């Protein structure tokens, strides 16, 4: 009963001083809130377990390294870490989509036809043609930088050497090229999506 009365801030400071049991109280006190919070985002027990574990590994490391800045807000801080790790999890997953293995195996979940069908390839040609026409509208110096960067895949360093301007100027021209292209696209209501 007495343990419940100790404030989080005090437990954190005891833990930093080396009292391992303080961590156990902190985890015990907040585990359900943090776990439910993670579960409410990911809806998967195993992932929740992983994120929960990573959250506290981060908490432990930060506290032990003395990087924790006590502002009397232990739980919101842990929640923020958990939130960031949930975002990391979704980012990682969108980069590496996994196929659902739960039911029977379907070969189509791993095979897909990446080539464009006739309609999509026509749209793609149209879009590319439109982009070229928009580029033609740009002032010469901006057009040059944009072509070198996008179509010839040159770095800004190479572009600056080739055109004899500083890197900053090349970057600025690229920026204005994009701004101007957006303007032209907006003014003419050009749709560049397929």
């Amino acid at each position, binding site marked *: 009963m007495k343990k419940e009365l100790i404030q989080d801030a005090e437990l954190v400071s005891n833990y930093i001083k080396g009292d391992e049991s303080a961590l156990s109280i902190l985890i015990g006190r907040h585990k359900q809130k943090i776990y439910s919070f993670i579960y409410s985002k990911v809806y998967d027990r195993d992932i929740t377990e992983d994120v929960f*574990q990573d959250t506290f590994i981060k908490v432990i490391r930060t506290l032990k390294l*003395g990087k924790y800045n006590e502002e009397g807000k232990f739980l919101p801080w842990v929640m923020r870490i958990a939130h960031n790790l949930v975002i990391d999890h979704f980012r990682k997953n969108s980069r590496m989509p996994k196929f659902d293995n739960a039911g029977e195996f379907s070969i189509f979940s791993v095979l897909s036809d990446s080539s464009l069908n006739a309609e999509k390839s026509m749209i793609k040609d149209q879009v590319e043609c439109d982009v070229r026409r928009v580029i033609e509208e740009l002032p010469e110096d901006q057009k040059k930088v944009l072509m070198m960067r996008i179509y010839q895949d040159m770095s800004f360093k190479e572009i600056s050497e080739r055109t004899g301007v500083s890197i900053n100027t090349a970057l600025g021209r690229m920026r204005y090229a994009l701004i101007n292209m957006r303007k032209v696209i907006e003014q003419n209501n050009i749709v560049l999506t397929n």
Partner: protein
Amino acid sequence: MAKIYSSASPKNGNLKPKDETVSFLLNYSKALSVINYNKLKFEALLN
């Protein structure tokens, strides 16, 4: 009757981490030691 559009949240009685996870964390915490050396901090896992 008013229609409820929100979906029911999954009722999971025990939304708690597994005991193994908690005990792993406590052990990790015990094993992790930070060594200070000339303003540098080194982490060491002493198992």
